[in-house]
């Protein structure tokens, strides 16, 4: 009985964080702000609800599966955010007018999309396995 109440609370908490994430997504003025809203809230929200499930069923198998999901969220959400942010930056998605500083401007070398101190320098990092021009999309 008590457990069910705890489950319910955790669940509601998670739900609320998700709601907040979506509000943030809706209200924030530019992409990067929206992302910083969603990335956290989504992770925590989903994590909490899953945790609630783990709590509710309290089985080794299920608990681990829940953990797997959480671990995955922790691993993937930031990477996704990074990828989109980076892409958006190349895509020229504008920063919000109220942005105070942008240290990133002008640091991407257009030739190979490497992020460098001064874009005129030669590539100083290449992913071990990747040959030149041998990219996922050619």
């Amino acid at each position: 009985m008590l457990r069910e109440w705890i489950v319910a609370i955790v669940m509601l908490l998670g739900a609320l964080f998700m709601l907040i994430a979506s509000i943030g997504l809706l209200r924030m003025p530019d992409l990067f702000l929206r992302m910083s809203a969603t990335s956290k809230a989504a992770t925590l929200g989903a994590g909490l609800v899953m945790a609630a499930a783990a709590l509710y069923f309290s089985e080794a198998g299920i608990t681990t599966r829940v953990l797997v999901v959480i671990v995955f969220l922790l691993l993937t959400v930031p990477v996704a955010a990074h990828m989109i942010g980076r892409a958006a930056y190349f895509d020229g998605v504008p920063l919000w007018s109220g942005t105070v500083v942008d240290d990133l401007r002008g640091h991407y070398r257009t030739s190979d999309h490497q992020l460098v101190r001064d874009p005129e320098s030669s590539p100083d990092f290449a992913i071990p396995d990747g040959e030149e021009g041998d990219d996922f999309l050619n």
Partner: protein
Amino acid sequence: MGSLILYLAARYLMPLLLLFSVFLLIRGHNEIGGGFVGGLVAAAGFILYAIANSVSAARRVLRAHPRSLIAAGLLTALLSGVAGWLNGKPYMAGAWLNQPLPVVGKMGTPVLFDFGVYLVVIGVTLLIMFTLAED
């Protein structure tokens, strides 16, 4: 692609994906999952790897040519049916070991068939994605 972070993340995500794909495949007969979704997850792993590194890298990791995977999968499915004949039943009549194996549980030709499906799905998905990406 030049993203260091993705490249690093992929290194840890891919093993998990493959692990999980096998997990889905093996328990598919009793829990939800099965050859299809297992195959798709496995393929997803390799695709992720290809995005993070390169197709050629992914091919190297995969070792076998996707086409051979397809052929192998079809062959497995085809042969899984023959067992029926061997014990005098119709084609594709399931043949089961009477003792459940450790981990995998009850083992029979239908599971083998599912494994064939698994291989074909991986092979096809990767054949398509790799070919497209390399063009």
